[in-house]
């Protein structure tokens, strides 16, 4: 499940991590009862998807939300993943920031090892209830835990543990009881699941909610390629992380440290860095002083490095994006684009965009995703929104008021081994210029495709409209010609329609309107509006 971990200056004191988040739960997005429900479901579903994909299993996810009493809900999330080893269960659910070592990097949903354990903590803080975990790795054995978190120690407190035999299944099920408010608006559990179904079209998601049961069916039978793990790139490493890595490494020299712990660093580059930092290449990493770390960071900035490998990224691809958009939105037209990978601050990232137009879509919407996870909050602060608002949509024939306003849904997927969020609650992508630029290029390309489609549609409409115009006025013209000359009206009408049938296709669609018999060039023809004149006089009198 969660495999990554992050150190942050604000949460450095190990013993008080749980205490810190107990007091600052808004940092992780738990700032309202409505939002808390969404975040708990999101953390559970993110973990379920990560776990199944990791094992190459097509995800089948079940979510149940049941109202126990006013503002108190039971949330159940179950997956068909590999399950969790017995020893790992309490650590994963009962320790904040539990995860594998930082320097293994991979494109995944969870990044910090904070998500699910924070949900457990929130549940315990708001209702006092323990969290129940069922996990099975097959062979008819199910482990059942009931646990809480010791906030002072940041440790799991196991209330009960039992082994159930004879039930043949595989996967993990979490049951939490928490305070919350269930709604079905724009930033709701339902919207989150719908968008998740779009960005994970290979998943089957069943939602048994307070207002009924619904299923988001799987649209493609193939998982995206599994992302590779990579080591960090020197250009993305900050001082604090460097200090921690120096401390934890098993390398015996600074040269060995640089070449083994980072990607794209060979012996020549490592020597160059040591030389520029004026450090003996044989120095043990554990003996590097703070002053020397600063010198190393400075040296890194001076040197040129090969860009990080990008095979660690796993785009959904055009087929899956189109499938996801079509199955959940039923649009008339879809355009998609996957940009080549790019790099920000030493981290590889990649942008995918889809634009769905018309059909059952009634309202414009910008859907943002980071590593296939929908981002529902803080739209205004997000790099994706800034890119989209910077595009002149009208140029592409799309109605807009900064963002499109017509029946258009925009899907933007940012994937990276390290998505730069603006906050711990992971709601908006930080605005690095290169990210904004990549999103913009992708949006423009999709908008071009949509614009070509739209102009085709409009042209076809114009052609059909043209013939109908010629036919529409035939009857009245014939009746008037009858009154004027006495000819048979039906006969003339038939003849006019015959002429239309024979000739309408030879006429240019966009004829220039040279019917300029009406005088338009002479404004003086008209009598000046007297009121205006009186008003002028009045105005003068007042002065």
């Amino acid at each position, binding site marked *: 499940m969660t495999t990554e971990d992050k150190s942050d200056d604000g949460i450095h004191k190990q013993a008080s991590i749980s205490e810190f988040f107990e007091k600052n739960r808004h940092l992780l997005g738990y700032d309202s009862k409505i939002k808390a429900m969404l975040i708990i479901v999101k953390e559970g579903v993110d973990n379920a998807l990560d776990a199944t994909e990791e094992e190459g299993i097509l995800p089948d996810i079940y979510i149940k939300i049941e109202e126990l009493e006013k503002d108190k809900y039971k949330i159940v999330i179950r997956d068909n993943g590999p399950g969790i080893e017995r020893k790992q269960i309490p650590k994963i659910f009962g320790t904040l920031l539990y995860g594998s070592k930082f320097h293994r990097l991979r494109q995944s949903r969870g990044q910090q090892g904070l998500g699910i354990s924070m949900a457990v903590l929130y549940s315990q803080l708001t209702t006092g209830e323990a969290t129940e975990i069922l996990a099975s790795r097959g062979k008819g054995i199910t482990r059942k835990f009931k646990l809480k978190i010791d906030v002072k120690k940041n440790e799991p407190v196991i209330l009960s543990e039992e082994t159930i035999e004879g039930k043949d299944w595989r996967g993990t099920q979490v049951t939490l009881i928490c305070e919350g408010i269930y709604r079905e608006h724009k930033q709701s559990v339902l919207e989150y699941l719908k968008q998740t179904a779009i960005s994970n079209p290979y998943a089957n998601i069943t939602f048994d909610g307070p207002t009924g049961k619904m299923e988001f069916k799987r649209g493609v039978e193939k998982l995206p390629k599994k992302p590779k793990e990579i080591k960090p790139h020197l250009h993305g490493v900050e001082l604090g992380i460097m200090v921690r890595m120096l401390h934890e490494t098993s390398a015996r020299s600074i040269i060995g440290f640089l070449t083994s712990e980072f990607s794209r660093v060979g012996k020549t580059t490592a020597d160059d860095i040591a030389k520029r930092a004026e450090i003996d290449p044989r120095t043990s990493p554990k003996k590097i002083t703070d002053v020397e770390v600063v010198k190393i960071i400075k040296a890194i900035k001076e040197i040129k490095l090969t860009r990080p490998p990008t095979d660690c990224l796993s785009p959904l691809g055009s087929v899956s994006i189109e499938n996801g958009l079509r199955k959940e939105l039923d649009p008339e037209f879809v355009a998609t684009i996957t940009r080549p990978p790019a790099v920000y601050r030493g981290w590889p990232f990649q942008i995918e965009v889809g634009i769905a137009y018309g059909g059952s879509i009634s309202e414009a919407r910008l859907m943002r995703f980071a590593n296939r996870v929908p981002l529902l909050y803080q739209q205004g602060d997000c790099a994706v929104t800034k890119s989209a608002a910077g595009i002149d949509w009208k140029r592409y024939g799309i109605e807009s008021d900064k963002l499109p306003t017509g029946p258009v849904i925009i899907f933007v997927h940012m994937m990276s081994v390290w998505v730069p969020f603006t906050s711990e609650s992971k709601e908006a992508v930080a605005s690095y210029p290169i990210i904004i630029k990549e999103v913009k290029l992708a949006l423009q390309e999709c908008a071009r495709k949509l614009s070509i489609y739209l102009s085709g549609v409009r042209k076809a409409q114009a052609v059909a409209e043209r013939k109908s115009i010629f036919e529409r006025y035939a009857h009245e013209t014939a009746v008037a010609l009858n009154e004027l000359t006495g000819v048979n009206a039906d006969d003339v009408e038939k003849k006019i329609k015959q002429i239309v049938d024979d000739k309408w296709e030879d006429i240019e669609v966009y*004829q220039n309107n040279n019917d300029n018999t009406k005088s338009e060039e002479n404004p003086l023809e008209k009598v000046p509006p007297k009121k205006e004149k009186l008003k002028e006089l009045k105005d003068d009198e007042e002065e």
Partner: protein
Amino acid sequence: MTTRAEKPKEELINFGKDVVGQIDQKEAPNINLPIRTLANIYFDEKDKVIKLGNKVSKRTYLNVAHTRKFMQTIMVAAECKKIIDQNVYTSIRDLYYALKRTIPNTKENTFEEQSESDPILEDIEATLNTLREQLHLQADRKGYLAGNILIKDSGDTIDASKMGSSGWAIPSNVESERINFDNCTAEYVLLVEKDAVWQRLNEDKFWKKQNCLILTGKGQPARGTRRLVNRLHTELKLPIYVLTDADVWGYYIYSVIKQGSINLSFLSDRLGTPSAKFIGLTTRDVEKFQIPKNVTIKLNNQDLKRANEMLNYSWFKPKEWQDEIKHMLNVGYKLELEALSAKGIKFISEKYLPEKIEKKIFLP
């Protein structure tokens, strides 16, 4: 004028037959319409009126931008024929309502606004070279007349010196089959832009003291008033003097009376009176009559734009007019007829007009 369009009904029928003929030939039908814009008019130096050029535009059925107007043109022609057949006179608004209906199997009306049918009627007038009055259509009455003249109107004799405070309302159709002049002792015609000023002059019995006819068109005069002015001049040889505000609108009203209008350039020889003279107001009057500056009005952007356009019209080329318009632009103000009241309520009838007429201080 009696030589052409003698039989407007036959003209209308021929117009329709031409279209039917094209349809019978399996051709997409076209109507040729004289272009009634600045691009196709010219100032006839000999006749001193604005005339319509030879340029025509084609209204063709198989052009999406024309089809609807094509239908409307035939419909208006047919309706005109119908009302001539019935020997009734009706208004252009009646015409609009008579033709307005929903096109079968659509949500569209044949005409949505009267502003659609009015220009179509002008198209037909220009194409057939006929007056709407001859097509039995009349516009709203707008003008008034008072003075020493006897007028025969459809069998009645009207003494325009005995019309009290309201005056004789000038009908839309003043052609000789309806209106004729009997005994006229007046010596000239004074056409006033504004009704309020006309009422002032009528109250002061200006027409009696000066032995003249006073007319107002209430702003831009309707065709009836313009046609009447034309007939008073050509048939009774009365000089025509025009009194308007000293602004671009007033000057243009004068030019329409004198030379005809761009839009109705095909009627200029019947509606224009080239020998008309402009009596005032001019911006030079401000100094000449010591009119207080505080009753003048500052020119706005529209005034400036139009004044500059007018400098280029060939019928404003006489140096007196170029001088007046440039002077207005120089001093940067305009003034209304009512501004003369600043010099006393009877200043206009007792001083301004008599002095100008006596000394013949006119603009050409």
